[in-house]
């Protein structure tokens, strides 16, 4: 039966909805889930219209609220009919929520220098991570990237969460122009980085993992694979990894991930 650390399946309620750049931030009362949250976890949400696959959403923040108890903020990027429906949920709407799901970011034992790199809405899990790392005395550098200003998630808030912030936009509308790949080496160098955490699309994660590897830094990447069930039941989100013994095998993105060591991902085989 459900243990006190495992995921829960509950009917949640939308308490607030807010536009954040190109994304939608939903504050949800989902009893029991916020208390179990660790940075890097996500929730799976059901959508309407006979669509059976779950929609995985990053948990951006958990809050100790008053009347509704603890709540969680999730970020929705509307890309298809399911996520568009989700983004339009009004206050008071009910949602079937499962979580917290997935392996969270592993925290360093020592107060080391950490660089957190997030692209677009995927930067969401890095903010609670930054908080945890700061509590542990780690020097935190945040890199927030996106195609343009609207595509950046919480860039302003980033300044509160980190010692140094680098903003990168594809069109150069804010921060430096370019993508993570072109700037990551310099950032890692300047921060004298020990550990790198990254969340975003595959090419960006690969670039970050490679840059970390070249420096001899540890990296952990939060992968976004489509997850039909998101709970580990269906084997629909295969991620190729190379284990310590050099053998390549498939793990499940939802329960064995989404956070995986960057040097373990088989970047050639992943798609």
């Amino acid at each position, binding site marked *: 039966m459900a243990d006190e650390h495992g995921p829960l*399946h509950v009917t949640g309620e939308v308490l607030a909805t807010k536009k954040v750049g190109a994304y939608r931030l939903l504050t949800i009362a989902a009893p029991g889930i916020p208390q179990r949250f660790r940075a890097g976890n996500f929730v799976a949400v059901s959508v309407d219209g006979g669509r*059976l*696959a779950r929609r995985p959403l990053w948990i951006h923040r958990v809050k100790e609220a008053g009347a509704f108890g603890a709540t969680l903020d999730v970020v929705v990027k509307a890309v298809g009919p399911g996520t568009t429906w989700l983004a339009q949920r009004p206050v008071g709407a009910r949602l*079937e929520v499962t979580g917290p799901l997935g392996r969270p970011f592993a925290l360093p034992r020592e107060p080391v220098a950490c660089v957190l790199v997030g692209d677009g809405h995927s930067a969401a899990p890095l903010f609670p991570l930054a908080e945890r790392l700061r509590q542990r005395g780690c020097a935190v550098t945040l890199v927030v990237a996106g195609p343009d200003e609207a595509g950046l998630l919480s860039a302003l808030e980033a300044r509160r969460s980190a010692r140094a912030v680098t903003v990168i936009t594809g069109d150069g509308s804010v921060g430096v122009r370019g993508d993570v790949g072109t700037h990551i080496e310099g950032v890692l160098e300047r921060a004298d980085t020990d550990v790198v955490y990254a969340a975003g699309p595959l090419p960006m994660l690969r670039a970050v993992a490679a840059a970390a590897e070249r420096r001899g830094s540890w990296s952990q990447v939060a992968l976004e694979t489509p997850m039909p069930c998101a709970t580990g039941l269906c*084997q*629909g989100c295969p991620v190729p990894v190379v284990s310590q013994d050099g053998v390549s095998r498939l793990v499940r993105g939802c329960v064995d991930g989404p956070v995986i060591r960057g040097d373990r991902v088989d970047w050639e085989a992943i*798609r």
Partner: protein
Amino acid sequence: MSRQPGPVMVASGCGGTGRELAAYADLVGLDFVTRSITLDPRAGGPAPRIAESPSGLVNAIGLQNPGLEHFLATELPWLVRAGAHVFVSIAGGSMGEYADLARRLSRAPGVAGIEINLGAPNQVGEGLFDVREPYHAASVVAAVRREFPADLPVLAKLRPDLTRVVEGARGAVDAGASAVVVGNSIPAAMPDGRPGGLSGPAIGPVSMRCLVEVVSALDNVDVIGAGGVSSVEDARRLLDLGASAVQIGTALLHDPTTVARVRAALTREEDTR
């Protein structure tokens, strides 16, 4: 004679290794059919493996599984310890492989029964023994039955092909199957044209028709309904139509508590009968 499974079972391929389901359902006494296990490990197909279609999912998992050896060493003991009634789904590339699987499983402690996967939607493409002819399917059942203890059930899971399902069920029972499972994902295509199997509420009425045909054609045969069951009402309907048990699969991917909820509701009904 061991207990007959039911009224609710976890369908093959939708309960993970059991560990993941344990967060949402009490495994004690739960009839759990494993994903199909093959003699050798199988990596499965490339991503994407699952696509949404209206009220359904098309899957092309490709029978990914760790192979019998690893299953017997890790997944089976965990399930048995958790208290599940483990029905091991098996799939083979030849008649000999099915017999080997059954023989090895007959010696594995804690196995409650075998379910023979005779209805994979892409049987031939996946290198499985071709059982599209009911005669061949029956031969597989006979081969498994010979190697597996007579007091443990062998379930034959058939393809929901209306034109052959009665013949398939009769053949399986004559060959020694303890029960037939009527329903499976039905042959379909992924959006890029690769072969896959459609499951979920979309196929419910198809599975039900097959069940009705088999139940009315075969007397005194346990027929387990599967395919599109996602609620207490769905389950009750199949039981009322003569199913001895129902399997729940795809619904678990949408709501992992489905099995626990349906089981609790049906168990209450049995208690008050």
